[in-house]
């Protein structure tokens, strides 16, 4: 008995209160989003707010159960749980129910269950378990292979379920790795690749190639602090460029400009390799590899974009990048979402008075686009309150994570923060047109049992670990 009392007095009540606030806010906005005159009773279980009420009560029960369970349970069973979920993911991919084009749901009678939501928890657990083991170093390739296996396997299966949004969430775990000492270079490289991908979509390929060449020269200078290497390289490049151009004009060759530049680049690179070998200029090979890798990526962007992305995903990205404008097509959702939020003005239209969300102008107004209801009915003030609550929660969790003595607990805490932050950033970002439309819920707020339960479980496991922080020294 003594231990249970300990749990309740040591649990971080501030986090619990923030959690309750968010869940409550979520429920009243779901009520408002699906409210209509015929169904006014809050206990009408045919309506979404009625169902959500059940999910919430169940979530509270789950939270209590989790808090009662011994804290060692989670690290001990971390791998096991992860395997169970991976197994369920495979099952669901093969036999699941398809909803909105994603085969991501298991159905038991009336209850639907989305294993992908829970894969985040077990991935965080498994990640914490692995990174907290003794012989892990962030400087070894083996480590990355294991990490890749833990994170990328569920991600890949979920991608196969055609649920790109949920799959993308696993990218968030990079933040955990960063906290655990992922070299900055690796992170920067990742950012570089993403930036290159986007730039290659927006800009003319030629500019991107010139840009990467310029970047390579700058990096060469930064790494070696010798300006001479840079201008020699530049002169060689310009000279071979002129040579190729002259040849083209002289022999009246009909070569596309891309190939000409590429040819000049290859030619000057070979020349420079020989030269650098001769003068012992360091790190040239790596840099050239990077350069040609970048150029290769630039050219493959179109291929990836056209062949690996679905048409609606392409459209959403084009829309966001301003390459395509179709306010009634792919941009419809975002446009309507912005209209709903924007029409809320400073103080909003008032509870139940939103017209845009209520009359279905905003799609998915109780799930992915629940923020529109808040923005429309509560205005900028409501937005400010909601965002503040999330930021307080995230910073509080950051504080809690950092005070853990157990590496497992801390890493798990960061896993939780990463996933929450990702959901928060992408979900609200998409409703106000800052990121492409990726269908992921707003934690604790959006309608849906799987999502609410998963976030509740994930949060309360961490709170449970936090209660025991003084006990464990690992």
């Amino acid at each position: 008995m003594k231990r249970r009392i300990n749990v309740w007095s040591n649990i971080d009540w501030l986090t619990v209160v923030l959690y309750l606030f968010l869940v409550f806010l979520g429920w009243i906005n779901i009520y408002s989003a699906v409210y209509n005159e015929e169904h006014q009773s809050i206990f009408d279980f045919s309506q979404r707010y009625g169902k959500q009420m059940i999910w919430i009560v169940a979530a509270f029960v789950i939270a209590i159960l989790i808090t009662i369970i011994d804290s060692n349970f989670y690290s001990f069973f971390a791998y096991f749980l992860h395997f169970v979920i991976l197994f369920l993911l495979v099952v669901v991919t093969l036999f699941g129910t398809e909803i909105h084009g994603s085969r991501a749901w298991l159905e038991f009678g009336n209850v639907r269950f989305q294993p992908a939501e829970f894969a985040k928890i077990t991935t965080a657990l498994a990640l914490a378990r692995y990174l907290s083991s003794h012989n892990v170093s962030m400087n070894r390739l083996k480590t990355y292979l294991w990490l890749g296996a833990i994170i990328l396997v569920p991600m890949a299966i979920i991608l196969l379920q055609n649920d790109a949004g949920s799959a993308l969430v696993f990218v968030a775990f990079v933040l955990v790795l960063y906290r655990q000492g992922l070299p900055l270079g690796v992170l920067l490289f990742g950012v570089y690749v993403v930036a290159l991908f986007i730039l290659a979509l927006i800009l003319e390929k030629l500019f991107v190639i010139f840009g990467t060449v310029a970047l390579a020269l700058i990096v060469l200078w930064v790494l070696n602090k010798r300006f001479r290497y840079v201008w020699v390289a530049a002169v060689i490049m310009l000279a071979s460029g002129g040579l190729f151009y002259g040849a083209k004009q002289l022999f009246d060759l009909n070569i596309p400009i891309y190939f000409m530049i590429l040819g000049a680049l290859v030619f000057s690179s070979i020349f420079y390799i020989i030269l650098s070998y001769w003068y012992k200029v360091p790190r040239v090979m790596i840099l050239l590899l990077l350069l040609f890798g970048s150029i290769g990526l630039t050219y493959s962007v179109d291929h990836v974009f056209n062949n690996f992305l679905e048409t609606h995903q392409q459209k959403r990205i084009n829309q966001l990048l301003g390459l395509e404008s179709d306010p009634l097509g792919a941009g419809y959702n975002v446009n309507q979402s912005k209209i709903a939020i924007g029409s809320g003005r400073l103080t909003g239209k008032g509870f139940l008075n939103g017209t845009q969300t209520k009359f279905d102008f905003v799609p998915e107004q109780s799930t992915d686009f629940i923020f529109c209801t808040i923005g429309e009915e509560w205005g900028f003030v409501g937005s400010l309150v909601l965002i503040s609550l999330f930021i307080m929660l995230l910073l509080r969790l950051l504080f809690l994570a950092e005070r853990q003595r157990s590496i497992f607990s801390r890493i798990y805490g960061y896993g939780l923060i990463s996933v929450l932050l990702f959901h928060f950033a992408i979900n609200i970002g998409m409703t106000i047109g800052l990121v492409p439309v990726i269908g992921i819920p707003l934690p604790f707020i959006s309608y849906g049992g799987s999502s609410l339960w998963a976030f509740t479980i994930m949060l309360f496991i961490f709170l449970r670990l936090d209660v025991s922080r003084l006990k464990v020294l690992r």
Partner: protein
Amino acid sequence: MALDTYAVRRNIIAFIILLIAVIFLVKLFMIQVVSSDYTPKATSNVIRRITQYPARGLIYDRDGELLVYNQAAYDIMVNPQHLEAFDTTEFCRILNIERSYLNKKLKEAKAYSRYKPSIFLKLVSSETYARLQEKMYKFPGFFVQPRTVRKYQYADAAHVLGYVGEVSDKLVDTTSYYKSGDYVGISGMEKSYESVLRGKKGVKVYLVDVHNRIKGSYSNGRYDKKAEVGTNLISSLDMDLQRYGEKLMKNKIGSIVAIEPSSGEILSLVSSPGYDPGLLVGRQRTKNYRKLQKDTLEPLFNRGLMARYPPGSTFKVMNALIGRQEGVLYPGTTYECHGGFYAGNFHMGCHNHPSPVDMIESIQVSCNNYYAHVFKRIMQDSDYESISKAFTNWKDHLQNFGLGDKLNIDLPSEVGGFLPSVDYYNRYYGENRWRYLNVVSLAIGQGELGITPVQMANLTSAIANRGHYYTPHIVKRIEGEKQIDERFRTPHHTGVDSAYFEEVIEGMDLAVNGQAGSGSTARTARVDSITVCGKTGTAENPHGKDHSIFIAFAPKDDPQIALAVYIENGGYGATWAAPTAKLMIEKYLKGSIDVQWWEDYVTGANLIKQKEEDEEED
């Protein structure tokens, strides 16, 4: 790498969290507080203003008989975004349309807008609508918008009643009332009384959801405006008489205009050939209109108001009245007539009649010679220093009778007549280089004269009134208003003394009711027990057989009806126009025809066919 410790990394993560929050709040501040673009967009999203079309005013005849009313019709609308696969064969069968029409219209609708409804099929009947309504659930994306169309009790009086059609783009641009797709009166009373008949459009403001489904009234109807029903009109038309006139004019080209002299109310306005006003309603309107437009007999041409004819001998009464008023003619003035008027080489023929004749007899027998002399006297009147002055004075008299300029009746498309001016002859002959002999054909209503049937009927009305007329009008009463426009209640005086009218009327009486063998020219217009006063006319027509003309009023002492009858290529006035006028008078005053033979005589004549045959012989 001292800068890259775990503590720094924790702080960077905290910084990222805060940065995201700041970015969101800035963006939200921009769209929620700074920008004011979104509120109107939200409003236009959910607010639908649905125009409420009032029922158009009804039109009755002078006896209260309903002539024009409204009938429900339905526009089939389509909203492309809600379309789903459907049984096109069944759909086409129900609406009785071709598949190609379906495909074409769907393509047009999608091209117009994927999200806004557009008209798929206009004005289908209630029966079709009922058939479709049962199956409507099978055709998502289609819905029905109620409308009203005009319905006509009779297939007559199209030129008077007019028709209603979709408003032109020009009218939409130049007025604030009409919106594209509205209906508006295009001709006849529908046009001239449009503002009375149309009522006032209302609007209902609804909240709609994304599927355009109405979710309720906006602000409890605070911004709704009720439609006001159009005002009913009581026309001055006597529909029985009108229909009888159209029956008499069948297979003839021409016009009958009948006026009640004491009020100026138009009793009937027949233009032949006419058309069934029901043809210009609903979906077949455009097709039928094109057909009518192509018809060489020009059924759309309102001859009663738009055709200009020379008045022929009917004009002699005008010259008699002017001559009397100017003091150049007396009842006792006599002229001998030996087959016409001779002046040097000039000769104007006359038909065989007793001679000599005085003024009254000259009207009775319609002597050309007599009026050549009267006209000579008017033109050479010593009161005027030149023929120009005398001519201008003569013309002023004519204008006082409503000839020349438009009468400004309350029907659209009326045109003015043509009266030659002094300038006209000065240009033609040279200034002061012409004399009465150059224009003497005006004496007998030939030459450069153009008078519309309504002007002719009005002139007859002025004679019947012994000196004044009221501007002819087609509206007797506007429901809810005490009186019609003042301009229809103000008499116009002709400036000729009423005593002179009595003399002329005496001649007109004799022309109709004179003894057999006395040379009376209009005995075919006689009606038992009613004194009809009339004057025949025969207008030379350069394009074919003469036009048959007759003006008359009756009864002589208490005129109830004054009318002008024009029958193109009908020959002598007495042949067709006079019996037609007689039948009209009898019908109006007695309600029935005494001698059926006359009616059969007129209705049995097919002058159109005869004209075609004559032309073939030529």
